[in-house]
């Protein structure tokens, strides 16, 4: 973490909360949660949008949305977010499906709608200025509705924000077992700060 105040907490209350949750989780509280506790009024709407995109009503399952988040993280080379969101996705989807999707979503055993949507999200993440109506039509022709594509775009937008501050702040990378434990918390509580 490049800003020590974010890591340790900006008030006595925050520091005690970070210590308490770390004790209960039996691990260092991940930096994503420390950011959520820091300067809360400023960043709270990011958490609100992320929570709505990831846990709000949608035709996409929670597992599919967590997989989208992990894919955005992969395209942005954000190691922390790949680990965090593939761990949550693995609680809803088969681990081999997640690993195959991360390796090559075009050949992975996922629905055609999700595959087409990931194609759109990849271009949106890596070459946003090249996005065209035809890219959206390709997704719609795969049977994805406009509402569902909007939901996926919201997931990718939120994680094009989160991955950037995660890497700019240099989030510490938990171990696989710590990601798994943190995944239980994310599944239960979501992303609101």
């Amino acid at each position, binding site marked *: 973490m490049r800003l020590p105040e974010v890591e340790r907490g900006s008030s006595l209350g925050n520091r005690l909360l970070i210590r308490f949750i770390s004790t209960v989780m039996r691990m260092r509280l991940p930096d994503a949660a420390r950011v959520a506790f820091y300067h809360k009024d400023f960043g709270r709407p*990011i958490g609100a949008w992320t929570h709505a995109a990831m846990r709000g009503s949608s035709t996409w399952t929670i597992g599919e949305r967590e997989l989208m988040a992990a894919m955005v993280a992969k395209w*942005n*080379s954000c190691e922390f977010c790949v680990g965090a969101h593939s761990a949550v996705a693995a609680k809803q989807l088969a681990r081999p499906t997640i690993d195959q999707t991360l390796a090559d979503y075009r050949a992975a055993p996922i629905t055609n709608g999700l595959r087409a949507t990931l194609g759109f999200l990849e271009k949106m993440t890596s070459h946003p200025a090249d996005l065209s109506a035809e890219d*959206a039509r390709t997704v719609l022709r795969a049977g994805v509705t406009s509402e569902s594509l909007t939901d996926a775009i*919201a997931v990718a937008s939120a994680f094009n924000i989160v991955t950037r501050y*995660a890497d700019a702040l*240099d989030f510490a990378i938990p171990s696989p077992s710590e990601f798994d434990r943190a995944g239980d918390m994310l599944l239960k509580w979501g992303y609101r700060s």
Partner: protein
Amino acid sequence: MHGSTRPDHRALAEAVRRAVLEAPAATTPTLRQAVAERTAGGPPTEPPYDELARQIGDAAYRTTDAQVATVRTALGTEKAAFEVILAAAVGAGLLRWRLAMQALAEANDAPS
């Protein structure tokens, strides 16, 4: 989760823009907006903010300790540096939101 009310993503995106780029905070809205515009493909802003903003927009995973430390020193507090980092990230995210929703709207206006 399949509840009955879909989130209003346009309103949620707008709330992010207002809170991070317009609301009173430790840094000026002018600085945060300049940084966000930079990561959304806009013109360079003033040093030392420009280098960090460009880095976060193009390849945040290559951000260095020095890039963050320089901005923190220039602003005087960690809270202010935190605001600049979030503003840069939000600029890149909201650019993608706008362009993707524009592509979808055009597809719906002229389906082939």
